[in-house]
């Protein structure tokens, strides 16, 4: 059964890269009764362990989301900003944004000259106040804001913000709650700062030194009108990544994931992503190397305020994570 309440809570939680405190607390609260040991490392990664004497396996899903950072507050109360993670100007115009303190703003643009391209520097955030003091007191350089969107779901799919990678977090939480009987030493890592270069995973991989690492993250799909060419589709099951810009999946890991899926009747599809990377990138080149792979959740409309995924794919991913940890 899909736990809509948990997913909605995770999606709505304010936690852009570098500001993951809130979601870290939320997840910790969710899993504290299930883990043998919970630590938070110096960069802020939340690491939950289920102890065992066997193989050391690391699962990783990142807690952070893309957003904006305020770079300047002008006298009239307009806010200038830069992107945190992969966002570009033309996707931003007109969007509602929300801050940690719950205040909001909308993204507006300066008047463009002929054929001038829209740059982030031509955009500003209007926080809907003419009261200079109110603005001065409530908005500061360095504050971050994220998309403001309502969680919505149908019988089979979900639209929400930050599905990248709160679905991954959701999957790991569910997997931990249903942790199987095993000798393996399992680390569930909720990592920080993936969107700005997989920084949390790098240090977590080094510290834990696992024998096998599996990142759980979203991937793009090729099932939309005139979209990118890709064989992955919503409802096609868990996607087993074969390659992206950060990793070529270790042949043994590809086989492990494939065989595990087949043995347990888990619906899966192969994924080759021609752009982007995940936590598995820095983890697999950590120390003298870690055989690594990725279980991906097919997701449309990535890095926008309305990411769309299929609930049954998520169920398949949870099953696969649990089966692999055995």
């Amino acid at each position, binding site marked *: 059964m899909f736990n809509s309440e948990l997913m909605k809570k995770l999606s709505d939680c304010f936690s852009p890269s570098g500001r993951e405190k809130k979601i870290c607390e939320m997840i910790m609260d969710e899993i504290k009764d299930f883990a043998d040991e919970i630590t938070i490392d110096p960069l802020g990664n939340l690491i939950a362990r289920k102890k065992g004497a066997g193989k050391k396996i690391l699962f990783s899903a990142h807690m952070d989301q893309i957003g904006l950072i305020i770079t300047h507050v002008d006298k009239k109360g307009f806010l200038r900003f830069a992107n945190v993670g992969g966002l570009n100007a033309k996707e931003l115009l007109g969007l509602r944004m929300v801050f940690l303190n719950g205040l909001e703003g909308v993204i507006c643009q300066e008047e463009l000259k002929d054929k001038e391209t829209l740059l982030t520097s031509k955009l500003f955030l209007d926080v809907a106040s003419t009261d200079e003091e109110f603005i001065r007191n409530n908005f500061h350089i360095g504050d971050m804001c994220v998309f403001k969107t309502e969680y919505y779901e149908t019988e089979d799919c979900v639209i929400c913000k930050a599905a990248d990678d709160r679905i991954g977090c959701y999957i790991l939480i569910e997997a931990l709650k249903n942790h199987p009987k095993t000798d393996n030493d399992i680390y569930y890592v909720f990592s920080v700062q993936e969107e700005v270069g997989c920084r949390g995973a790098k240090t977590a991989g080094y510290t834990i030194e696992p024998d096998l690492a599996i990142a759980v993250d979203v991937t793009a799909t090729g099932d939309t009108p005139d979209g990118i*060419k*890709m*064989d992955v589709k919503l409802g096609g099951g868990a996607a087993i990544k*074969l*390659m992206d810009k*950060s990793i*070529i*999946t*270790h*042949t043994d890991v*590809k086989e492990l994931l494939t065989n595990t899926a087949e043995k347990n009747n888990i619906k899966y599809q*192969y994924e*080759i992503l*021609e752009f982007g990377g995940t936590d598995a990138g820095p983890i*697999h*080149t950590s*120390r*003298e*190397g*870690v*055989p690594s792979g990725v279980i991906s959740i097919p997701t449309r409309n990535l890095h926008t305020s309305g990411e769309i995924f299929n609930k049954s794919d998520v169920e398949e991913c949870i099953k696969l994570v649990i089966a692999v940890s055995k």
Partner: protein
Amino acid sequence: MLKEFLFDICSNHFVSGFEHINGDILKKYFKPYTDSFEMDRLGSYIFKRAGSNDTKIMLAAHIDEIGLMVTSILEGGFLSFSTVGGFNSSSLVAQDVTVYGKENIFGVIGIKPPHLTSEEERKKPLKIKELYIDTGYTKEELEKLVKIGDIATVNRKPLSLQGSIISAKAFDDRACIAVMLEAAKELKKISHKSNVYFTATAQEETGLRGAKTSSYKIAPDIGIVLDVGFGKTPDMPADSPQLGKGPIVAYGGRLNTKLTKKFVEICKKYNYPMQHEAVPARTGTDTDAVQVSRDGIPCILLSIPLRYMHTSVETIDINDLEIAGKALARFINELDNSDLEEILCF
């Protein structure tokens, strides 16, 4: 001998991430000259020649090559593909390929004939997305033989041109594996003191990944990185390094100045020809990863001049390999008799 090795190893594929498949060929050649063998966990091959002291010298050349990966199986027996590593897409047009599926499958990458294309169209370079592998099977037959994620390489039998010039795919960087082999042979003749690690690194083409993990594993005192550089062709400046004039010594921040100087001195002393290049920052070679491994590793970088990089007709002069191999053996021998600490201190 070097030519035989190169022709053999270049007739087999080592696509990034799939370096393990034909590993036995590599082992066969290095075994007679080395004492032990191990791998890092990304698939880099490490052949060790033991010495009598504690010094560890790492030689690194990458074994991997760029390749293609099947992304979907289409009607009419065509395959679309992505690249593993950076490909010059124009070098893929009108080539034979082998797809490594359930069995090895022959295919070609063709384009529409000029009869059906416009002048405009022919001026545009083709993108990888516009190219397909034609296997001559029906989709149904093909689905039994090939899966998404299977890899493919261009077919090219190594070729002898005039004199000592040879041409093949993947001389980037197998040429330097040959340099290591030559150095290993030379070192076997002398009783060197340092422990020498001949490392055939994995996944250089996709981001120096094997160099990172193998140098961490070895934790050497110094690193000698071997890669290919651009040999002069008509479209390059007149003073560019040329084929047949020896290896190219690199100078810049990623390289240890005193160590490089020592190498140059020794080449001069023993009359090994060499060429020179300035590399102010990023070298684009394994050096960039090795240098910052653990607490830092002083490196030198030697490049073998090569024409038509990242095509199926990479062209080199075999004499450059022999010179580089012999010079390196001499260099290692001389280091044994020098105060390494003295050289490496700032």
